[in-house]
């Protein structure tokens, strides 16, 4: 048995978003109008219509986490320049079900319990460093190629 939402979730996790051609394919496969696929894609929080960044940061905004002060992490990320771009995606999420470890932040799938601002700053700066290293590496390897070509 195939379910529309399961199939869309698979596409979402494969690509990090729902590409238009995939949505059209699902529309044909399930024989439902594309408008309904679009309504589902925009109704449920799990779907996005644009690609997510290389690093995904979730701040839990469940009751126990907010009462434990998780809102300040959003400010921290904003201040650090974590924007929705190709490097980073920030998404608040409603409860991971790890409430006794509140406040919880999930970075690239790893759950960090009892988070503090200073710890978050450390982890995110590390990600920034890695990103800039990667882009440096890209440049050097490109430079090497240029040199070779010359």
């Amino acid at each position, binding site marked *: 048995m195939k379910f529309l939402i399961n199939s869309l979730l698979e596409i979402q996790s494969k690509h990090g978003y729902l590409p238009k051609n995939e949505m059209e394919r699902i529309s044909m496969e399930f024989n439902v109008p594309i408008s309904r696929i679009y309504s589902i894609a925009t109704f449920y929080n799990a779907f996005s219509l644009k690609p997510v960044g290389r690093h995904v940061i979730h701040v839990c905004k469940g009751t126990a986490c907010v009462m434990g002060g998780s809102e300040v992490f959003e400010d921290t990320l904003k201040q650090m320049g974590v924007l929705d771009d190709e490097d980073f995606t920030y998404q608040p999420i409603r*409860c991971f079900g790890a409430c006794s470890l509140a406040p919880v932040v999930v970075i690239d799938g790893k759950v960090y319990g009892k988070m503090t601002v200073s710890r978050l700053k450390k982890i995110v700066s590390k990600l920034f460093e890695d990103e800039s290293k990667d882009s440096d590496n890209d440049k050097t390897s490109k430079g090497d190629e240029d040199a070779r070509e010359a």
Partner: protein
Amino acid sequence: MLEKLKEKGIDELYGDRIAVGTSTCGIAAGALEVLEVLALDDTKNVVEVGCLGFCSAEPLVYVQENGKAALVYRNVKKIEEAKVLGWFYPWEFSPLKLEHPELEGYKEYPRLVEHPFYKKQVKIVLRNCGIIEPLNISQYVAMGGYYALQRVLEKEPEDVIEEVKKSGLRGRGGAGFPTGLKWEIAKKNEGKKYVICNADEGDPGAYMDRSVLEGDPFSVIEGMTIGAYAIGAELGFVYVRNEYPLAVERIEKAIEIAKKYGFLGKNIMNTDFSFDIHVVRGAGAFVCGEETALIASIEGYIGEPRIRPPYPAEKGLWGKPTVINNVETWANISPIILNGWKFFASLGTEKSKGTKVFSLVGKVKNSGLIEVPMGISLREVVEEIGMAENVKAVQTGGPTGGCVPKNLMDVAVDYEELTKLGSIMGSGGMVVLDNTTCMVDVAKYFLEFSKIESCGKCVPCRLGLAEMVDIIERITKGEGSLNDLEELERLADVVANTSLCGLGKTAPNPLLTTLRYFREEYEEHIRGRCPAGVCRALVKYRIVEDKCTGCGLCKLNCPAEAIEEVDEVYKIDDKKCIKCGSCFNVCKFEAVERL
């Protein structure tokens, strides 16, 4: 076949083993790192189990060796250095009569059942969680699993329904509809039938469904199979939150295993009865916990609730009679069948029978999942089990529940009594609040939640909640007036009475209960002061030079880079300060003042 599995299970369960709790909460606390180290010693039998419930003591590891009972270590980083929490017999939490070899106890350590966290608990739903390896069907059978199904398959479906009816079991998802009655209605209706397990546990602060699916998935599958036999369904669905990847994985695997052993699929346990289960994942919409919205979602639509009646038991999935019960309800079924309805009905209050699982979190010393008999007082739960001090209120029932103030905490926990106080049982979230919590801020948080999660179908819910959020935001900024309170009450009344589904009907609860029990806090905000010092627009922070030791912890923890070092002490730049209170919370010398 059951006897053979049982024998194998008993050998494994009561033999030498070191068990690490690796549910989501355990993993987040570092259980996998502990597991990795323990597994290096290949002379030992190291296994993964679900959650014993005591989340604030995680990672939990227990050692069972040389014919002795299980010795539990708490907050384990290195097992040699970890503290002992207590010891237990692996069978003693289960209400079922189990065969087991005798194990020797410990004299030098306390028993786990005497620990304040476990003393008042009665485990039916959580009977196997943290005891068995979740995907080990022999161990499940050794703990009494599938004997209920075997017995049921020899009975008439009507007798099964009668047994569940007499037990007094009511739906554990929140509404509390009698389960047996629901089954009876579905049975009476003609045509193809379905059963559904609602595992779309969207309530922030509640995670019992996740824990049961991760720690004891067969108990849910067995319960659903019994339900399907009783009403005459051949197909079932588990609708589980996508945010719970481990729970999805476990239930999917457990279904495959049950099929392999003939407990699911064609001709179950060599009878004529056939039943199959599919897993459907939710996609992150709180409203899909409402049964008709959930059904719409399985059918491949957006999760908008439908008008009831007809109820799903009459016309549900694809228009067919459908029994939809919560994870916890399903997990209750096989103990009811095995121990008989009288056992279940002897627990609890007149109208609410059995036990209820709560996730006790917030400002408590002992946090985690607890299962207690219905009718226990809220005070016992919070102060004796949770060992909370300085409680201000307890928020029950998830985002659309209410806040019960300290002086009313002697209330008995059951469906009716909590409703009388303006709160609800809900799915069992319990968040303890203390004096550092602002009740207006709490109400704002929940209203915002409901506003975002409202599906938008009913105008009062969609627009009414948005209007209420606007007003309460104004109050938290100190710009409210006394008229606003009346307006809020009026809007709450309209939203609650004119919305279609449970979300809109109960969304005003947090506002109404805080207004009822903490009205003076609202009035203080209107006068321009937040008593708990939470609302950002109404506070200001300053560092007292004489007390500042120059340690710099505040600067490290400032999200806004608003703290600068000037002559070996620190100063807050008011222009940059976002008034989050981080510095106030981290300063060890009380050098940060809140004005």
